[in-house]
């Protein structure tokens, strides 16, 4: 009797064990935990937190937590519902209708309505530095409190990306519509009120930003995190040592191979996903107003002299990818058939000979200078120094000009006082936003990150303007393909590599921000699996 009872007990236990194993093996992982604090460093101090009037990654990261936007994006360039639960782009492409959720409120409790959406979009159009993003927008109609219709003067496929969290924060009309100049509005730095998953606790300019969970966020159950702390810390080494000591648990925009390796060894995980939206490129820009840079053969020779494999493997520790076109390889518009300018010193020399720059007795053809954008040694200074040695092999004497700080370099480039310069420029998602500005003849201006190369090709202008209005993705890709072939041939800039931005994080994080916008989208589904 007793023996059988024990056998039954064992059977029951075995059954229970088997069931548990089944459940565990089926992959239904632990449910998301509420709680935890994200502590991350910021390399640059944001001027303020209103991304409707201020672009740049320093402001966009925190602003995407404080403000919600009509749409958000996944990692496959597909728009996802956010403040807009449904949307329709009209067949003629001249209007985008947004149907808003009905339960969204701002941090002060007031509801988010189409009035706020209309106000935000027109404010962004009037004040945001990326003027091409909303240029064709004429007005935003609000037939009812939860419907907004954006009317455009011509088809503008970029309008969808323009609705991203980084680019289209919905700001409260009842706060910012008080008549004060919004660019210097006091609520940009204090009492910053949005409808995003986190609300502002403290912003000390130049020091840190503290945000905490917004309990009435319109997506139920989210966000999971209690707090987000972003500390301004411009020194990479201090960040790495601090991270090892537990002072930070996430680091975005890490681009130095050495530091990433060090943290990997300490048990952290590094991923390069999440930067496809930004599309950052390192390139060497030529001043086409000056000889000999004005000669296309000279530019091609320099591009052929660049060993991009060496740069990416040795200078960047194998973390970056070579680039030889204006659109990043992770973009849907990238055309892989462009000339990769595989390093060929003989070809470079032949081109220079054909251009009429023969070698003098001392082996020198001509002398030029190269500036480099201050900030990242690995991406710019080292590339310039490397080029000095490399170009000497083909007879070009290259002098590297250092700039003491960013405004000095910016002044030089903006006043066209350069032969060549390294630069780091972002695509910003849709080519209309971040790519066109470098190649359009109408954008030759005395401001950095415009067409400071003075490149002028009417065919390219036509292609870009057509692509901006083309709704059919196939036709649009075709335009951009021709565009890429032309500039790849004519080289107003010689692209070097895609900047290897990585997100390095403590292994206890789950649901990392890995959409195309990475950490510049709401961190409402990020959760901490530690204690």
């Amino acid at each position, binding site marked *: 009797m007793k023996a059988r009872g024990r056998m039954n007990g064992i059977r029951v236990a075995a059954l229970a064990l088997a069931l548990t194993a089944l459940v565990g093996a089926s992959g239904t992982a632990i449910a998301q935990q509420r709680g935890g*604090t994200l*502590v991350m460093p910021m390399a*640059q*101090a*944001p*001027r*303020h937190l209103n991304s409707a009037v*201020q*672009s*740049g*990654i*320093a402001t966009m990261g925190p602003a995407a937590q404080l403000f919600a936007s009509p749409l958000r994006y996944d990692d496959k360039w597909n728009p996802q519902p956010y403040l807009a639960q449904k949307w329709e782009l009209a067949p003629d492409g001249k209007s985008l209708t947004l149907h808003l959720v009905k339960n969204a409120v701002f941090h002060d409790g007031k509801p988010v309505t189409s009035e706020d959406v209309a106000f935000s979009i027109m404010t962004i159009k009037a*004040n945001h*530095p*990326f*003027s091409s993003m909303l240029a064709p927008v004429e007005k935003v109609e609000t037939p009812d409190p939860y419907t907004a219709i954006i009317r455009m003067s011509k088809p503008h496929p970029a309008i969808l990306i323009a609705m991203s969290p980084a680019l289209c924060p919905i700001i409260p009309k009842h706060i910012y519509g008080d008549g004060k100049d919004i*660019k*210097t509005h006091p609520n*940009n*730095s204090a009492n910053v009120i949005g409808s995003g998953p986190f609300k502002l606790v403290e912003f*000390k*300019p*130049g*020091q*840190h930003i*503290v945000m905490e969970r917004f309990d009435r966020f319109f997506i139920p159950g989210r966000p999971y995190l209690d*707090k987000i*702390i972003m*500390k*301004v*810390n*411009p*020194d990479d080494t*201090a960040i790495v*040592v*601090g991270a090892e*000591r537990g*002072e930070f648990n996430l680091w975005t925009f890490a681009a130095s191979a050495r530091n990433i390796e060090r943290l990997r060894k300490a048990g952290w995980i590094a991923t390069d996903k999440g930067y496809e939206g930004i599309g950052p490129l390192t390139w060497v820009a030529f001043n086409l107003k000056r000889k000999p840079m004005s000669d296309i053969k000279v530019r091609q020779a320099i591009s052929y002299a660049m060993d991009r494999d060496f740069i990416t493997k040795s200078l960047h520790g194998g973390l970056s990818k070579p680039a030889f076109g204006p659109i990043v390889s992770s973009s849907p518009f990238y055309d892989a058939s462009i000339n990769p300018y595989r390093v060929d010193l003989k070809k470079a020399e032949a081109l220079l000979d054909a251009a009429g720059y023969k070698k003098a007795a001392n082996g020198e053809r001509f002398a030029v200078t190269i500036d480099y954008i201050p900030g990242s040694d690995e991406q710019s200074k080292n590339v310039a120094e490397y080029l000095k040695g490399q170009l000497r092999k083909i007879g070009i004497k290259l002098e590297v000009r250092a700039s003491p*700080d*960013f*405004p*000095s*370099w*910016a*002044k*030089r480039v*903006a006043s066209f006082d350069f032969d060549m310069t390294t630069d780091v420029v*972002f695509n*910003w998602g849709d080519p209309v936003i*971040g790519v066109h*500005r470098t190649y359009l003849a109408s954008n030759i*201006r005395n*401001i*950095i*990150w*415009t067409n400071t190369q003075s490149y002028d090709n009417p065919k390219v202008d036509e292609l870009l303007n057509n692509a901006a209005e083309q709704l059919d993705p196939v036709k649009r890709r075709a335009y951009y393909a021709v565009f890429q072939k032309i500039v790849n041939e004519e080289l107003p800039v010689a692209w070097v590599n895609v900047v290897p931005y990585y997100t390095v994080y403590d292994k206890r994080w789950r649901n990392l921000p890995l959409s195309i916008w990475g950490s510049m989208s709401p961190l409402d589904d990020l959760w901490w699996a530690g204690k």
Partner: protein
Amino acid sequence: MRLLIPLAIRLAYAAILVVAVIVLNFLLIRLAPGDPVETIAGAMGGMTEELRAELVRAYGLDLSLPQQLLRYLARMLSGDLGYSYFFNLPVSGLILERVPQTVLLVVVAVAVSLLAGTALGVLASRRPNGWFSQSLTVLSVVGYAAPVFWTGIMLIIVFAAWLPLFPVSGMDDIANAGNGWFAYALDVAHHLVLPVATLSIIYVAQYSNLARASMLDVLGADYIRTARAKGLSEGSVYFKHALKNAILPVVTVAGLQFGNLLAGAILVETVFNWPGLGRLAFESILRRDHPTILGILFCSACMVIAANLLTDLVYRAIDPRIRTGSR
């Protein structure tokens, strides 16, 4: 009454000095290539022509230099230090937020270097040719010669990276901020150790040498021989009679060096990411944030002048000859 007139004269000189400092710095800053608009374009990742023109007009950068200077002086005299180009916030607010941190750093550093320097110097003076005195001299030269930022980085490497005894940077650990002011004070004190050590090393080196030399000088005087002859204890001789006289040069030098301390604070604050005026000044120069730079320089000039005045008063308190003398 006898005190007031020289004080008033000094204050008048101080006012003229401050205005001169402002004008000079105003011109100097504008010599640097690049302007605040370029910085803002950089922070924004690009800019339109219209925005650029608007900013130039808003910041008065299209006016002539004398016009800009007069505009700034006029505003300053009415108490308006202007708005930061970079943050769009009042400069006075930015400065007031940072002053306590810098004052904390500098005052603690002054106290530590005076106390430690004097103590070491006095100890060394007991046996001037002993090993302690000799090694102190050598260490002083090293500590004095080493650049501040190098010392700071070395201390971080040894005491924050190799031996994780102290935090790497910053003033507090807001993520793990304990509850209550006492936990916070401890946290700040913990973060304060390395920056203060860095800043004081140079001055400990100087003051210890000075104190030692000064003590040796004083100990050879007649009244000390008298005191010993009277049968007073060594301790009384050293501390009651000798030190009071020996400390005068140290106090003088400390007062004069206050300006250097502030300059050293800029480097220390940058190395340690300490949220003080020095770091704000450094970053503002890199950002060409003219109103903030001028505001900070104005405040520093005032602080240095105040420190000099304070030194004078302390001197009068210590040295009775000045108090009752012919001044």
